[in-house]
């Protein structure tokens, strides 16, 4: 049985609870065991451009906790994933830094040696579970659903550190979407930033970037944008919802977190996937399934 310690970060428990809910439901269905660690704290992401040392210590403490549990980490947020990866990379390259980190961690009887692997949820699904196993669990696949996959910057880049997928031509996420029966559309701005890092700093620019991406999704004929990160989800869900009124968008491309999409194709209940917790309504998604089951009954 696959066993990981779940790292949810800060954004998910406060604002994107449906992501954790759906990920847990999907994990149970796929035989993934998730272990709680109440001691996990902020990954350090927000400190990265103001104080590198504090950032490293914040990340390292989490890594040390996972190590103490003797488990690999399953990270849901791509910004958390990227930060933890970057911190681990920096510490491993600098023995002096590692010593300093361990002196700091010793106060809490922790130490970091780099034994726990940091894995993103999507990587675990793709590499550790595998498409064949996932396919076996798909009971109500989608038909005629077009999805735009948004990879998320901090999982893809810097690729020498994150090693998530090919940074220029990734395919992992598209394959995971295709396995649900949905179509993954090609869209030129797929690998661009969602704009979330500038929310609260330069909101106009942040919305400009999100709007461009959504327009691109729309041009590519996507019904939904699918993400694997709470920041991206917030940007395409709550911020898009604000943009609909503030910017008079002529189209709406609701966003869905991947385990919600996968869970629906697995026939999991709406409540267990928290579909109603999204800001923009995604109930329309079920119509793509109903057609399938109706066809089955007709046959």
């Amino acid at each position, binding site marked *: 049985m696959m066993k990981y310690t779940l790292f949810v970060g800060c954004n998910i428990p406060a604002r994107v609870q449906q992501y954790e809910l759906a990920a847990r439901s999907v994990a149970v269905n796929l035989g993934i065991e998730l272990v709680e660690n109440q001691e996990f704290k902020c990954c350090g992401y*927000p400190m990265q451009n*103001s104080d590198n040392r504090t950032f490293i210590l*914040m990340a390292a403490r989490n890594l040390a906790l996972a190590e103490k549990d003797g488990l690999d980490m399953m990270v849901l947020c791509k910004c958390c994933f990227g930060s933890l990866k970057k911190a681990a990379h920096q510490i491993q390259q600098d023995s002096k830094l590692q010593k300093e980190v361990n002196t700091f961690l010793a106060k809490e009887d922790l130490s970091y040696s780099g034994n726990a692997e940091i894995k993103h949820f999507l990587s675990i699904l793709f590499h550790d579970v595998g498409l064949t196993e996932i396919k076996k669990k798909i009971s109500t696949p989608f038909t005629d659903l077009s999805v735009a996959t948004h990879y998320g*910057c901090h999982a893809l880049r810097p690729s020498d550190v994150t090693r998530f997928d090919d940074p220029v031509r990734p395919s992992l996420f598209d394959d995971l979407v295709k396995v649900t029966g949905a179509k993954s559309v090609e869209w030129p701005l797929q690998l661009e930033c969602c704009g979330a890092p500038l929310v609260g700093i330069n909101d106009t620019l*942040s919305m400009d*970037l999100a709007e461009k991406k959504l327009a691109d999704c729309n041009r590519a004929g996507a019904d939904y944008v699918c993400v694997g990160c709470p920041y991206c989800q917030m940007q395409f869900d709550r911020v898009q919802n604000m943009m609909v009124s503030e910017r008079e968008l002529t189209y709406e491309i609701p966003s869905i977190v991947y385990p919600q999409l996968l869970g629906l194709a697995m026939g999991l209940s709406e409540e267990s996937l928290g579909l109603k917790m999204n800001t923009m309504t995604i109930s329309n998604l079920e119509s793509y399934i109903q057609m399938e089951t109706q066809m089955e009954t007709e046959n």
Partner: protein
Amino acid sequence: MLYTFMVYIALSVFAIGLIYSLSSWFRFNVGINADGMTPWARIRAAIKGIVGLFNKEKLTVLGKVFVFDILLQNHIQKQDRLRWIMHMLIFSAFMFLFIFHALDQIIVTPIFDRFYLMMNPWLIIAGLILLTGLSISLYRRYILKVPRLKTSGMDLYTIIILLLIILSGLFMEMTKITSYEYYQKIWWVHIVVCLFGLAFLPFSKMFHMFTTPLSLLANAVMDENSDPANIATRQVMELDACTHCNTCSRHCSVAVASDHLGNDTILPSERMIFLKEYVANKNISSKKLAAIGQGIYLCTNCDRCTVVCPAGINLRELWFSAREELVRNKPPVDLMLTPFSYFRGLNHRRIDQEQYDIPLENVKSMLTSGCDFSAEMDVAPIVLNQGSHEFHEALGLSKRIESFTYCFSCENCSTVCPVVTNYAASQQSLDLLPHQIIRSVALGLKEMATGSKMLWNCLSCYQCQEHCPQGVKVTDIFNTLKTVSLKTTSSTGKK
């Protein structure tokens, strides 16, 4: 005679204290709610709010909170079993002693008449139970050393006053049989300590016996959409409801930053102590203001403190209000240009547009004032900075950072940058393009490298770094530049 006189004095001080504290809930405010509202208007709003509670639905909610959260203290039980045992021992024994001993003339004598002495063994048992509770409290603080459990002067006072009351009471009972003389002396000690505790109660942590239940009740029936006047009142009351139990700080997401930076006000429990003083007197030194600015802004708004608070305090909203007030102060909070602004941005509609923009503009101009790009571009010849060596040193010169020397100005970074692409006249809008920042670093032009709008609008999406044919760690360098710049401008004196 003296005794009666002392009782009246203590009761008067208690009453004055109570009126002072109650009035402060309507006179003061934390941050932006109820700005410019008179205390009378807030009292009227509070009365209206309370009257609105008299319906079946709301009363059921309040009833449940009273039984489970106030009497049984379910919130504490869920967090920490030992602490719950400690608090239940103190709470139950204190209430018992208060009703059957302190108020004995009012309650015990009329009921038991001449047999009032039969209460005595129970009083001693209650005293011992309270003593056990206090011992657990001391054990947690000084032997178990619960992580991030900070002991303030007020915490210590509370433990000491309770210890004095209980020990003097127990000794008094013990000497009753052996020596009347000693008994009388200790009786006076017991009375004086009890009356002092009573008189000082509205100014001490013990006040939480009224305010914490009130906070639990208020938060059960209020939300974001409640009358802003009532939210403001509730928030000041919540400062009194905080018992400094440190549950919030134990769960705080950014507690590690507080450990490292040595800024206690990053921890929620310590912010509460600060805010309590601050609402009453807003004239504090700019150094302290900068520290608290960092303290309150360095928060991921993960809501954990709000979820775990045993007093039911809506800390999330308290931070939101306090933050809006503190960012308007000078010096500006430099962390505003980091992802810590995320929550504020998501909630921009709750803030007046101008008030939302001004603090951001202040920080931006502070951080970009070092270099006048419009003038320098056309006329001034670039003078190589004498201090370039120190500047490079300050960048850390780690392997990743050193990579700027490989740049051959192919401009790939600027071509793939989504921020650059967003502007038709990118150079004018952003001062410098990414490749120009890298060149400024190489030339040791510190003001240029750290002062452009480009740098402070960088998303850290790593497109530039990923696409650099020379392996220049462009985004990492940008992050380092921001760090260096914040270190030099920041008044909080980060390490």
